[in-house]
């Protein structure tokens, strides 16, 4: 099926609509797009018209090219209207607005789950704008291909995975910045289908929850993590590992007992394991959060707050809940080197964490520039593709042993050499 899909997609036209009133450069843009694999099928002049069309019988386009200020409203209202749609198009902004307004539009898109296709300033420079359309088109084709392959798993398929060892912990290493040593791993859930195909977490975690299989899957992740740790520790390699657990599971006392039984059975000190609290609606109930997190600490596990700064986690929770680690979400890290507000957020989180005696982990560090920025901000540890992708347990064990004293060698070490570790 895939070998048929690929050539078809290569020539496929992506659909775009425009909402570019009083924009004199619209015509050259539309002509340029038509020569690059786009079909600009409709053009509108008011918010009212486009909203009507989007809610009509027509299939929405892949991309909507719009100004931010409109004669009868603005793009903010448009984004809100898009959020309610099935197959909402992505949005490309063309504006002469100040940067903070454009950033707010991006943020609103993210909040509503609407994709941003790109931005261009007025007057329009095609050389800057067109590569963004090309990139969107390339990613869009891949997205379609992927979504053709990733049909949602059915309940019986999920059951099969859980019954037959199809739930696998992939390990992503975490590096302490002061020593460049690997001090831990985060276990991330992947599925291996009967055909050997890798199944992404987005197709697993929520469906497992809906099918009532998340507890079993989480315990399997936990078992694999415990086995991995025992293997390392028995070899004299001191590393910890964290497992993601939704708060709804921790509130089940029986589940917590099962975790304790598992570490006791093999004689593992629970402090090698960190339970990462993933945010769900339960996080909005402070009493419930305190009860359940305190229980985890009582049993001797460490506790980490994932994606700090998003959704429900708050400064006040940090002071009330016995966390040992704070993880800063990758969205704050991505492109941080050139974004002053992200730098401010990450620095504030790092300062807060260190004053509370917590480890502060920057997630999703992918390149040198981001590494330098998180060092500058004062984070204590990093995780991300710069060190390694999540890898299967046997590979992680071999990788760890291949390092010189668990120390990760960054290729160009100029940045770290200039930085004096605070030991």
């Amino acid at each position, binding site marked *: 099926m895939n070998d048929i899909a690929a050539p078809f997609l290569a020539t496929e036209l992506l659909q775009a609509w425009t909402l570019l009133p009083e924009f004199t450069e619209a015509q050259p843009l539309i002509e340029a797009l038509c020569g690059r694999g786009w079909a600009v099928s409709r053009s509108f002049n008011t918010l009212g018209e486009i909203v009507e069309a989007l809610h009509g019988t027509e299939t929405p386009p892949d991309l909507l090219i719009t100004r931010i200020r409109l004669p009868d409203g603005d793009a903010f209202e448009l984004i809100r209207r898009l959020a309610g749609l099935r197959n909402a198009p992505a949005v490309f902004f063309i504006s002469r607005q100040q940067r903070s307004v454009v950033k707010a539009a991006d943020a609103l898109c993210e909040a509503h789950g609407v994709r941003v296709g790109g931005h261009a300033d007025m007057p329009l420079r095609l050389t800057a704008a067109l590569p963004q359309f090309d990139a969107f088109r390339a990613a869009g084709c891949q997205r379609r291909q992927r979504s053709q392959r990733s049909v949602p798993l059915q309940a019986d398929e999920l059951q099969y995975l859980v019954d037959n060892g199809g739930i696998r912990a992939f390990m992503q290493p975490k590096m302490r910045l002061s020593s460049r040593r690997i001090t831990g791993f985060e276990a991330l859930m992947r599925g291996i289908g009967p055909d050997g195909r890798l199944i992404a977490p987005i197709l697993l975690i929520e469906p497992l929850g809906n099918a009532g299989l998340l507890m079993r899957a989480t315990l399997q992740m936990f078992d694999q993590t415990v086995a991995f740790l025992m293997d390392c520790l028995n070899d*004299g390699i*001191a590393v910890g590992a964290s497992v993601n657990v939704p708060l709804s599971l921790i509130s089940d006392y029986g589940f917590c007992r099962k975790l304790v039984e598992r570490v006791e059975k093999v004689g593992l000190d629970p402090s090698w394991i960190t339970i990462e609290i993933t945010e769900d609606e339960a996080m909005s109930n402070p009493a419930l959060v305190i009860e359940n997190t305190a229980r985890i600490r009582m049993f001797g596990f460490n506790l980490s707050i994932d994606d700090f700064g998003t959704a429900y986690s708050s400064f006040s929770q940090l002071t009330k809940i016995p966390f040992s680690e704070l993880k800063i979400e990758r969205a704050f890290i991505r492109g941080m080197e050139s974004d002053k507000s992200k730098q401010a957020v990450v620095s504030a989180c790092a300062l807060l964490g260190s004053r509370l005696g917590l480890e502060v982990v920057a997630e999703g560090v992918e390149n040198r520039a981001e590494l330098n920025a998180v060092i500058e901000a004062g984070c204590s540890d990093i995780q991300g593709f710069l060190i390694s992708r999540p890898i299967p347990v046997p590979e992680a064990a071999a990788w760890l042993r291949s390092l010189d004293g668990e120390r990760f060698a960054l290729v160009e070490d100029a940045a770290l050499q200039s930085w004096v570790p605070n030991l």
Partner: protein
Amino acid sequence: MDSSAVKEQPLALIVDDNAVNRNVTGQMLRRLGWASVQVESGLLALEQLKSRAFDLLLLDLRMQEMDGEETCRRIRTELGLKDLTIVAYTAHGMEDDRERILAAGFDRMLIKPIFLDDLRTLCAYVRPTV
């Protein structure tokens, strides 16, 4: 290994009722050029300390029989080992108890889990020349 080398090598006593922890700590100390003796209780630690000299004592605070604080007090008073470096290690979140723990006669506190860098810093403090 000749006998003078053995004499030069500093010796630590590891007291922990968890075998995995004893083992990994012992292996890390060996990587740092130290030798170690490992026991699983405070009472056995007292026995060891009566029979030979150690450069460092690593003591888990939470043990089933006699806990770390009690063990430490007895080492300081009954055995009179005033100069021995005794380090408590304990779970995260005990920072508020630091004062009470140090009052039991500990020189330092480490938070579990203990990594190689923690031991490296500690060993450099106890025996800077190794």
